[in-house]
């Protein structure tokens, strides 16, 4: 743990501490709009980190991560809805179910050598399959959605994730920071090296005795579990779930944007990406409004354009470039 900290150059440590401190005290100075944007940033940084573990470190392209978020959210929400079981317990069930799905997908994919785009399609297929299944199940509310009650007398039960923006702000911050810490720790572990080896060249990794199947399975399980936790967070933040949104491929795409734009296989990539993309969307809304452009779709066109420009100019993501710019490259 300690060497994780000492590995960061001094200037980086200062910046990191200042940013963290700023985010910790920010709610005192921020209005609710910025809080709501930051909560989204934290969410996307966290689930982006989860995806980063699987893709950035272990090199497995999943385009169906909404599946895990949706399952986590649904399972915890259903336990709360039917049995009043709080999310702190429900999250374990949600994680277990999501991890089970991850295990099936991983087993099929890795056992049968499904790689690259094919593996991505496998993950999409599972997400879509589950979406349609949830659309056709009545106890989950079907396409009509699952709604969690907003009870005024319980709005301070933070232990049941019944609370206001402050609760979700700090929870989101904790998730994003915790996710980054976990990733940093894993990346420096034996497992982390095995993931990198598998990502770079699986055959060469095997010849060095790396159990690629096991390493990849663990990556999927960790990634699915983290994403499921993110899903629980979101379900209780919004108090409603709809299969068409929870499992939508659009959701899966949203999850992967931050880590790719920020920088895959880096710890700060997903965070930087989330801090770029979510505010970008908000800024584009504000800008189109400011310039009196009242044509729906304008914002999205510019958003798409930005994605294309960033991926063309900074294919490795913004963070590696930013790191050099800030002089944070570790000395060799």
């Amino acid at each position, binding site marked *: 743990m300690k*060497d994780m900290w000492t590995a960061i150059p001094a200037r980086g440590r200062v910046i990191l501490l200042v940013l963290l401190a700023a985010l910790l005290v920010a709610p005192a100075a921020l209005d609710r709009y910025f809080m709501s944007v930051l909560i989204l940033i934290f969410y996307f940084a966290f689930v982006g980190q989860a995806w980063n573990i699987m893709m950035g470190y272990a090199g497995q392209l999943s385009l169906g991560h909404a599946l895990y978020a949706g399952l986590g959210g649904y399972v915890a929400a259903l336990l709360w809805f039917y049995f009043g079981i709080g999310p702190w317990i429900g999250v374990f069930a949600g994680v277990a179910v999501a991890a089970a799905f991850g295990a099936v997908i991983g087993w099929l994919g890795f056992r049968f050598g499904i790689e690259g785009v094919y593996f991505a399609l496998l993950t999409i297929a599972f997400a879509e399959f589950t979406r349609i299944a949830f659309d056709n199940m009545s106890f989950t509310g079907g396409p009509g959605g699952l709604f969690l009650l907003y009870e005024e007398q319980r709005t301070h039960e933070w232990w049941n994730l019944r609370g206001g923006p402050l609760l979700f702000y700090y929870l989101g911050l904790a998730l994003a920071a915790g996710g980054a810490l976990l990733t940093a720790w894993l990346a*420096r*572990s*034996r497992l982390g*090296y*095995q993931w*990198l*080896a598998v990502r*770079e*060249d699986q*055959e*060469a*990794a*095997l*010849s*060095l*005795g*790396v*159990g*690629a199947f096991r390493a990849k399975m663990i990556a999927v399980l960790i990634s699915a579990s983290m994403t499921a936790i993110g899903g629980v967070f979101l379900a209780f933040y919004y108090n409603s779930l709809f299969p068409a949104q929870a499992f939508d491929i659009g959701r899966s795409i949203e999850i992967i944007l931050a880590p790719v734009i920020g920088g895959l*296989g880096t710890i700060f990539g997903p965070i930087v990406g989330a801090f770029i993309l979510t505010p970008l969307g908000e800024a584009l809304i504000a800008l189109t409004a400011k310039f009196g452009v009242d044509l729906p779709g304008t914002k999205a066109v510019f958003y798409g354009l930005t994605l294309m420009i960033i991926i063309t100019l900074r294919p490795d993501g913004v963070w590696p470039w930013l790191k050099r710019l800030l002089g944070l490259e570790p000395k*060799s």
Partner: protein
Amino acid sequence: MSALLKVDGISKRFRGLLAVDRLSFEVPQGGIFAVIGPNGAGKTTLFNMIAGVFAPDGGAITFAGERIDGLKPDKICQRGIGRTYQIVRPFPALSVEDNVIVGALLHRHHVSDARAHAQDVLRRLDLYDKRAQRASSLTLPDRKRLEVARALATDPKLLLLDEVMAGLRPTEMDRIVSILQELNRETGLTILLIEHVMRAVMALAGQILVLHHGASIAQGSPQQVVRDPAVIHSYLGAEDVA
């Protein structure tokens, strides 16, 4: 000396083409054993079978007294066989040191231990000063050495070297030869190498097997083999004996 590796009548067929044909040989514990032969003789196929990339169609491979044919590459490495690839495959985006750490982690659970071991290996292979470079930025000779370092870091009992000398300048080659000799002498590492460069083979090998069309045409000490008429006819005659 007992045999560390025993290859007993293995064959491999690709789409009807017999790549290796009932081949048998033994690599003694602590020896350096070379396999030579023209291109397409089945040398790399032989290596791939020993290393577990694919299973032989028939025959048996015994390592340290246990059957290993049909095991997967990672299991074989875990038993103590390290290998390099003819066309090098370093992990390009990783640093030289991290490349070697991956190997070192096979028998070490802590990255710090693995790093220490990796650095030892890198020192031995003259790569220590380049340990922070990305593997993709290395020159070919350095990459070849990195391959050896990575395989060595797994603490193998047997090291399979697939043409590590190809493309090296004579001085670089001599350096590798002496490194390998040192390893063999000091640690008792057994080496099985495929090599085209006869100069290196003659300097290193205690025993040579000549492979032609998937079958052994000669086997013995270097001096015996180079004088073998069949070998001269089918292989050495066609190329310069360096």
